[in-house]
């Protein structure tokens, strides 16, 4: 693991309504690393992302980005500090076109917008052909690509990807993961949440396994790949 730590989460506990969604969770993402968060639904992955993004308040624990504690910073502040977020369910802006969805997330002026949007279309050619379509007109796979591309428009240091292959056909899911690998290769650090174990381990160096809000296991992908404990966490028996 790279010596420089980009994201440090320490003893995080989050209540979602009355449910203890996360309990005393600690994890690290190093600069340039790709880390997977694995776990069944309800394990706490989405809650984790929402808390890092500032959409949920933890009642215990700290989150620090590049050694700077995030404290009570608002979501928009965190986005400007270098967090990119592709949420569960994609949440593309339905009434904006593909191009507008991308442009609205850029922080600079029109030249910067042009550069970044072009880069997005290089990464996802399928988006380029549909640049004038509205968000609501896109298929699930296209929306997912748009959500990821949009998250990159702010030139984030850390990209939070919540279940990018959810509800996608295997072929599309593979395509999306290919793009994610390109993003990782480009040097952006990534924290990826996935239900599908094999897919996430194939793209990431390390992984944390969440089970009912706690970190059950963690380690390098190779070690976790055929791990019986992981299988049990999912399929029981």
């Amino acid at each position, binding site marked *: 693991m790279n010596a420089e730590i980009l994201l440090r989460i320490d003893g995080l506990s989050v209540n979602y*309504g*009355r*449910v*203890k*969604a996360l309990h005393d969770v600690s994890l690290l993402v190093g600069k340039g690393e790709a880390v997977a968060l694995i776990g*069944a*639904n*309800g394990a706490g992955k989405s809650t984790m992302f929402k808390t890092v993004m500032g959409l949920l308040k933890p009642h215990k624990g700290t989150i620090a980005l590049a050694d700077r504690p995030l404290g009570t910073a608002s979501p928009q502040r965190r986005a400007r500090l270098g967090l990119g977020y592709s949420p569960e369910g994609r949440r593309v802006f339905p009434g904006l076109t593909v191009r507008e969805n991308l442009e609205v997330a850029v922080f600079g002026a029109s030249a910067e917008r042009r550069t970044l949007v072009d880069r997005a279309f290089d990464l996802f050619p399928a988006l380029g052909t549909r640049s004038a379509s509205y968000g609501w007109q896109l*298929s*699930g796979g296209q929306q997912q690509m748009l959500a990821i591309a949009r998250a990159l428009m702010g030139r984030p240091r850390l990209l939070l990807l919540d*279940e990018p292959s*959810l*509800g996608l*056909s*295997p072929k599309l899911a593979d395509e999306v993961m290919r793009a994610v690998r390109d993003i990782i290769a480009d040097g952006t650090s990534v924290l990826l949440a996935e*239900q*599908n*174990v*094999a*897919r996430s381990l*194939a793209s990431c160096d390390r992984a944390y396994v969440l089970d*009912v809000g706690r970190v059950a296991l963690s380690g390098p992908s190779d070690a976790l*790949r055929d791990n019986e404990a992981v*299988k049990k966490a*999912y*399929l*029981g*028996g």
Partner: protein
Amino acid sequence: MSVSNVGSEPLPRQRGVGALRWLGRGINLPLLIGAAAFAAYASGAGPYDLRLISIAGIYAILVIGFQFVFGYAGAISLAQSCFFGLGAYITGVLGARYGLEATITFPLSIVGPALLAALVAYTVLRLEDQYFALATLSISLLVQLVVTQWQTVTGGTNGLSGIPGITLFGWTIASRWGTMVAVWVLVVVAGVLAFQITRGLYGRAFHLMRESLPVASALGLDVARMRFAAFVLSAGYAGAAGSLIAHVVHVVSPEQVGLPLMITCLTMTVIGGRLSVAGAVLGAVAIVYLQEQFRSLQNYTLIAYGGVTLAFVIAAPYGLIGALERLRGMITAPRRGAVPTAQPIPRPAAMTRPQGPALLSVVGVVKSFGGVRALDDVSLSLQPSEIVGLIGPNGSGKTTLLNVISGLYESDAGRLEFLGQDATRLPAFRIARLGMARTFQHIHLVEDMSVVDNIALGRATAEGVGLKNAIAAFHRDDGLDRARGIAISAARMLGVEQHATTLCGGLAYGTRRRVEVARAIAAAPQLLLLDEPAAGLNEEEQRDLAARIRSIAALGVAVLVVEHNLVFLGALAERLVCLDQGRLIADDTPDAVRSHPKVVEAYLGAPA
């Protein structure tokens, strides 16, 4: 704050003891003292004040009526003032022009607006909030236009004057004192009637309806009919109040139909409280007196009055009554009501009926959302006492299937048969009434109601809850008592009996989940659908819940459980059905399904 008119009623005991208990409950004592003080003041009031007191009473009736549609049904009806004006004009026109007595004009003033409400109900009641408000506003404006234009009958913009006082069987109430008494007698009648209608199971059903429409429908409640009843009731009450104002001020004019009166009505409701009769009276009296006291300063006061009401909306959403109750709650600990005695849950009625080939039969169901097939040719069946687990990765269609089976969604193709009947096109509340009950991923309980009352709502349809029964239930609501008795048994089955009289707002998550399941089984269903019941529960709670579900199934109930948690299901299900991308990929014993290659692939991904 406890929902007004709600609270465990004491078991039938000696009258005296019961009355003392009533005094000690909630804010009843301060209210009684206030009422007595008011009565004392009224007895010594001069003629001008008597008129004011009458007007306050009339507005109280108006607000009590408004509470049905605004407080209980939760809809902003801007037609309340138009029903009021309509009632006033019916009495005014028939009384002044045709000399008809109050014995005739009063009932007509109630029936007229109620009929209008019933007529337009079909158009407006299905609309979302913002459209409903505008639609009712349009109706109000239309009525106002008719009233100002139909000069020959209504006297146009000037209205009609010289309307006689209340005349009953030839005898006219000439004095202001007599009129005031008559008005307040009617206030008491209106209040008692409203209390009667809303204090039992029916009133509680409205709270659930406001909390969540799908949940209410899934319990078999006909929410359309409930909203209809509330709307028509509110119109009838407004008409009665309108009739009285004609007698008190002896004039009817278009102002009685207009928007300013509607805003006054809203203000009184907001300040007094949306759900309690006492609040209606309090709000009416407060506003009438405030308006009077500052009459000379008029416009400055109105600015202040708007500001104060705004402050109420922001800071005290339950009005003065709610604030008083909160105050009371801070001074003394809330009194726990008596726990009802347990009644056994009746066996599902159809157990004795001959069954078709299966209890539930789903054949070839297809459901698409915007081009995506959430369910693609899914078929499965269930037998009595079977516990079947429905599994699959996120987005595979499990909850969609549950929604189709329980009638919240209508399938695009395929067939649904329940208890031998074709249920494919039945709306949710009708399927529920056949004998199906379900829980939801997000728990919806009425926070301000006790556990036993929440569970008792599961019996609402079985008790034939409805307006007629609510009015007819004289001294006690037997339906509510029976329902509570059965609710205790259901609570026992789920191990929450010790929380029976606790308000749901203070419960831990695991307990809330069990209360929700208890509510579903209180309905004595033949088929129980559970949507992720184990989510958020720790291991011990999961084991406990699984055991309880097994005992429910042992009674003959078929159970379909949607779950991610395969450890939980392992202890529970005899059969597992697995969905992936809307298609059914396995339907077999748990062991077989767990090692099924397609299932493993769906969850863990294809082997590297």
